[in-house]
């Protein structure tokens, strides 16, 4: 078994990397490319914390061989923010307090991002269905679903939307390094 050179297109950048045939995409992302946003939790496709996008569709990176990911456009949670500026979805997660321990968050963001790209204003049932493959063991899903629902559709009745970035009262930037 030898290492093989493959090219992956990750977050709009081509990366050449040497992999073993039995390396999963998650292992390559985390261990070889230092993209540690995607997490390994169950390792068998049940929890969703390793979710990444391949060609715009959410996929489990722990059950995808790195070799199989050649020729697809990969987007990880690191690819959501534009340089220093968080995406609307990420900011909405912060505003709505949808992050507790944060371990499920990269998977949630990636699944939600794929949904919002197809359907910018989904109803709550659609969101629940889209996030059904992601488990959060901290707090529950109410805040997460709210954050996704209000990303492109801020509600006046929602206090988190009013104090959040949509009204400009919070700096929409990552502070410091």
């Amino acid at each position, binding site marked *: *078994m030898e290492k*093989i050179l493959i090219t992956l297109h990750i977050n709009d950048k081509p990366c050449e990397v040497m992999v*073993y*045939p*039995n*390396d*999963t995409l998650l*292992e390559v992302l985390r261990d070889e490319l230092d993209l540690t946003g995607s997490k390994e939790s169950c*390792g*068998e*496709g*049940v929890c*969703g914390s390793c*979710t990444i996008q*391949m060609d715009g*569709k*959410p*996929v*489990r990176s*722990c*059950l*995808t*061989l790195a*070799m*199989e990911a050649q020729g697809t456009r990969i987007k990880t949670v690191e690819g959501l923010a534009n340089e220093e500026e968080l995406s609307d979805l990420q900011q909405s997660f912060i505003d709505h307090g949808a992050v507790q321990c944060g371990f499920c968050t990269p998977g949630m963001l990636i*699944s939600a991002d*794929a*949904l919002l790209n197809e359907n910018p204003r989904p109803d709550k049932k659609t969101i629940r*269905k*889209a996030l*059904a*493959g*992601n488990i959060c063991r901290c707090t529950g899903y109410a805040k997460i679903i709210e954050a996704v629902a209000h990303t492109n559709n801020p509600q006046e009745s929602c206090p988190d939307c009013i104090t959040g970035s949509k009204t400009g009262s919070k700096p929409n930037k990552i502070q410091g390094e």
Partner: protein
Amino acid sequence: MRLPRFDYLGPDTLEEALDLLAVHREDAKILAGGTDLLVRMKKGLLQPKFLISLKALNELSYITQEEDHIKIGARTPLADIIDSDLIKDKAFALSQACEKIGAASIQHFKGTIGGNILQDNRCHHYNQSDFLRSGRQACHKDGGKICYAREDADRCNSTCQSDGATALMALGAGITLATKGGQRQVDLASFYTNDGIMPFACESHELLTEISIPVQGALSAYKRLAYRSAIDYPIVCAGVLLQPPKSQTNDIDEARIVVGAMGRSPLYLAQASSSLKGKKLSDTDAFKNAAELSMNSSAAFAVHNVGATLEYRCAMVSEMVFKALVQAAQSVKE
């Protein structure tokens, strides 16, 4: 969890894939979506020397209608089947079943219908980590001589928890298995062996290429029960098909009731099915009766090995069958 070592083979055509399979046979496994295979490999249940990837074989991904059959390529992602209006219209049970497999948006893009049919049987005592299994005697499926699910069992009692297979068997589907230089068609019902260790009669050099569903204006529905609505295997599921005669639409000419996640393979229940012959589509008493019969006939096959108590699962068989029958009957087109 690391995957065990293997060599990765990426054929570009079906012919190349069949050549490779003919050479490597038992040493090779087919990789389509990998959502079942890679999990089993990670747990050390399987250690193939070669993985033959179907990634480049787009010729195996299609849904078409030819005369009175719907043909589905074995590598068609579940998402395509769910989105297909043809399947929704003519083979509703399959559409419902595929929606329930894995998670709505995550495994559907990787998981394939062929992989779902060929998923291995499962058992609480068998589908465990290497570490847990190493601390005790091997069970039948693991190459040993004992069964943890049923005392003194002389053979493996693992359960077939495939949603797709249950629905497809109810729809009377057939499959095509290709080998180097040939192929054979087999009815899905006779493809299953009722053997826990080797659940289907698929030779090591055969590749599942196509699923073919007959369409004759039949009504179908699929219901399943699971702890979690996403990424969970069913603990009971039922697929039903009601075939009205050609002249009128209110009678049942032929019925097929298939119960899954109860036995070593999806169970076609002949007695319950034939009890519906000649009954009206609006006859819910007949449905209740058929559901009871289904429970009685399938209870003998189940063992306590996929979660939930056996009593609960058996009781739910009639519930799932009844709900599926009612839904199928209601889907009649005016």
